[in-house]
């Protein structure tokens, strides 16, 4: 069974080009050039992946993204943008796009991103088929993780619950955004292992956001402000000079005395 892709793009030339690129991957592509129409189609039909342009006549791509996310939390979405100023919003507001690409993009890049998204979708579908889930009707346990059979990871007093996307530390729920959650989750999968910024980009975001590497720094900074007692001397997410960042398992142990 072929995967279905919805291409929402008002520039018909670009839309056709994307279709040509994706046909090589043996995928079914629907093209939609109108915002409102596209939203209807995205909500009513079943697509494995939506490619969504930010600048659309009528309704903005960011709005479509938000509405589709509300209806279908698991819908995989890649946003296309030609305005670099929009990327901040896609990343910063965490509208729920799984990935984004800036126009113009190369064939290789597009195909790689689409493939990686589809892999994710299939992994989740497979997992759902094998799992009896206790969640509300069609809701599915969110996000893939390296250990799909575990519903939670815990290190010391830090508990990461994958099913509810919830992190508790010292028995207190920590309110995190999607990306912050994924970042702490990634660290928890590999405690005490040091990652460079580039590796974190690959591991958490899945590819190189060229020119937006600083989002890693921003997210680490925000995570620290939510977890650490003293951000100037982090005990949990630490820097290893000359190498990168790590989750210090000693820092989350119950016996930890916060004075060195």
């Amino acid at each position, binding site marked *: 069974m072929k995967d279905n892709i919805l291409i929402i793009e008002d520039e018909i030339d670009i839309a056709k080009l994307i279709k040509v690129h994706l046909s090589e991957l043996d995928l079914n592509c629907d093209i939609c050039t109108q915002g409102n129409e596209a939203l209807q189609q995205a909500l009513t039909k079943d697509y494995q992946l939506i490619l969504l342009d930010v600048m659309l006549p009528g309704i903005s791509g960011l709005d479509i993204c938000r509405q589709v996310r509300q209806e279908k939390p698991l819908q995989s979405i890649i946003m296309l943008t030609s*305005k*670099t*100023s929009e990327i*901040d919003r896609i990343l*910063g507001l965490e509208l729920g796009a799984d990935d984004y690409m800036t126009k*113009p993009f190369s064939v290789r890049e597009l195909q790689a991103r689409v493939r990686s998204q589809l892999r994710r979708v299939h992994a989740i579908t497979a997992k759902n088929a094998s799992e009896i889930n206790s969640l509300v009707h069609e809701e599915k346990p969110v996000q893939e993780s390296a250990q799909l059979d575990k519903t939670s990871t815990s290190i010391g007093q830090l508990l990461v619950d994958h099913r509810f996307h919830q992190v508790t530390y010292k028995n207190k729920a920590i309110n995190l955004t999607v990306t912050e959650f994924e970042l702490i989750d990634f660290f928890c999968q590999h405690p005490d292992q040091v990652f*460079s*910024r*580039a590796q974190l980009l690959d591991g958490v975001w899945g590819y190189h956001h060229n*020119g*937006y*590497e*600083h*989002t*890693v*720094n*921003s997210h*680490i*900074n*925000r995570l620290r*402000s939510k977890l650490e007692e003293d*951000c*100037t001397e982090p005990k949990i997410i630490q*820097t290893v*000079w*000359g190498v990168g*960042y790590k989750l210090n398992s000693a820092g989350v142990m119950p016996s930890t005395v916060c004075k060195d």
Partner: protein
Amino acid sequence: MKTSLYQRLALTLCATFMVMASLLVAWSNSLVQQSKYQAEQKLHVNLAEHLAHDNPLLQDGVYDKAALENLFHTLMLLGPSFEFYFLDTQGNILTYSADPAKIKRKSVSLIPLKKLIDKPQQVPVFGDDPRDINNKKIFSASPVYQGELLQGYLYIIIGGEIYDSIFSQVQSDKDLQKYGAFVVAGLFLFLLVLLAVFRYFTRPVRELATQMQALKAVKFDQTKVELKQWGSESSQNIDSNEVHFLGATFNDMVVQINQQFSLLTENDRIRRELLAHLSHDLRTPLATMQGYIEILAIKGDNLSSIEKQDYLATVQRNVSQLKRLIDQIFELAHLENGQVTVNLETFPIGELLHDILAKFTLKAAEKNIALTLQPQPCQFIVYSDIAKLERIMTNLLENAIRHTDNGGDIVMTVTQLSTQVKVSVTDNGSGISKEDIAYIFDARYRASNAIEDSTQHAGLGLAISQKLSQVINSELMVKSELGNGSSFSLSLPMLP
């Protein structure tokens, strides 16, 4: 109403003066008259008594009216300004010395008569004028007794009709005329002085208005009109005189407007220049692409695969250059829009610099350049915008690597200056000449020493970096010597 401020002031002043002068004249006249009456009445206060005493006609108690009239008449001839009346005890006029047609009253009130008789020193006292229903005049009066019995009163109106009008009185009085003339002249002089003073005081307003008019006529173009200096150089003087203050403020405003206008035109010129340069820069790769694509389309199969590969690689190289340039143009435009959001947060600057450095390790290694961060570890905490800082430092490092020869050194240094942290990127590369250094932050200024690796260089990098620094309330500083490398630095606050 087309009157100037001074004209309005002068008119008001004149009107006030006229009212005041007439009031004054009226008041002084009545005063003079009062004193005149007083003097007259004092002089003649005993006249009636004497007459009553001396005149057998009156003493007899027998009234021969004709004889009495005759007597009165004779008396009037002697003193034409007197009118004689004989009243009974009720104040009814019995006999008089005037033309019957002129007599308007049948009786006069006795109250003033008694008052004068009782207290002759309290003059003037005015009694009813028999010749006029409403008028009152000074008089002399005396009771007439026959034996003990009050017969009536002798009532003498003093001054008669001669003093009836103030004007005739003034005319008849030299002193009063002099006095009046003196007062009027004095007032007039005073008025003139005041008008002159007003004129003096309103002069700056007139001048200001004239200057404004002149400037308005030339559409506020400062170059066409000499601006008047308001007040002295000291600002105190300006502040104490409102008009000078207005004038000075107006001048400042005009200067400001002109400055802004010239700045606008200058910006416009720079923008047009930039646009011309940029369209040239955009056209170059586009022309290359078009050429090669046309060759591919026309010759197609007749090309060897090596040629095809080569042409396609050229097209792709130009595409990426075009993309890079357009990205920079957009970024600069976005920054200049002034609608950039700044996300300030407190973060360890050392970590960010280290991560940025890591991005360039490969690039530096290719040119055999030593790329280091000082000090290590670097524990400074700053309050700034991570994204903007990353862009600036990335730009600076790219520039440093581009302008540093193989085997050179690039150092990123972090130093603390009181409440700020200074971040610098120092290289020992080609450096910047004195002539160029003033322009390096201008959009699309390419220094004469620029290395022509045009595929990677659009000339907007430093302009963007400077704009970004301004967005985070800092300023990019440069120190450089030709041949001795350059150092770019930026100061960041440590606390919010």
